């Protein structure tokens, strides 16, 4: 049960964040941080089907996380779901076509190892 929930969280989080990044990238840089302007931007953004799907994924991941916290400690839950870092970085290169140079790969690898160790 624990590991099923972990797998569900990793899959749903990665899908959700990828969809979100895809939408925000195509939206373009947000310049205006006044509350009214931000409200209009997010009003439009939240009507996009990608964002709707991404929120659905994040809701699945959120409730799976709550369920996981009932059967395991936070010190198990957070690190166990940390493999999303690896999955998402690879997908960012493949799907979002981000150009990940050697330095960023090295940094991402260090972070992934660090997050794993932080669990122990």
């Amino acid at each position, binding site marked *: 049960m624990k590991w099923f929930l972990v797998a569900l969280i990793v899959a749903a989080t990665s899908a959700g964040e990828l969809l979100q990044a895809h939408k*925000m990238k195509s939206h373009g840089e947000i310049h205006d941080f006044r509350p009214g302007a931000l409200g209009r931007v997010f009003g439009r953004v939240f009507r996009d089907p990608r964002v709707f799907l991404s929120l659905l994924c994040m809701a699945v991941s959120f409730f799976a996380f709550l369920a996981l916290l009932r059967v395991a400690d936070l010190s198990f839950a*957070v690190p166990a779901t940390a493999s999303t870092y690896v999955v998402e970085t690879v997908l960012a290169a493949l799907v979002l076509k981000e150009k990940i140079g050697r330095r*960023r790969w090295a940094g*991402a690898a*260090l*972070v*992934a190892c*660090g997050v794993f*160790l932080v669990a122990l």
Partner: protein
Amino acid sequence: MSGRVARLHFKTRLLAVVVILANVLGNFFLSLGMKAADAGRFLLTALLDPWVLLGIALLVVWLLSRMTLLSWADLSYVLPVTSLGYVLTALAGRFLLGEAVSTWRWAGVALIVAGVGLVQRTPIRTTRPRGRREAA
């Protein structure tokens, strides 16, 4: 041009701090509330716990600030940089809650800091901007 780049870096760092703090505090209050909630109770009743509600509010701030950050920064940039939250959690555990932090955990903290140091010195955005404002 360099002024624009400096501005982008400043904006990115500032928002990254908001994203990290909202995430760490949100998770903390959520976990506090879930632990306080009686294990025998139905999961949905835990949602009425004030700490759980505060945690959820902070996670909404986290979601919106993160989406804003993703409107100009790469996912592969945002992801490692915001992992500094783990470092913050470890430091808070050690210095605020007096938890013992193992050598392995400190090693993890060091690796994350080193990794973020590397990623931070890569371009914030590597995909071509397609927003309406970018045409101007």
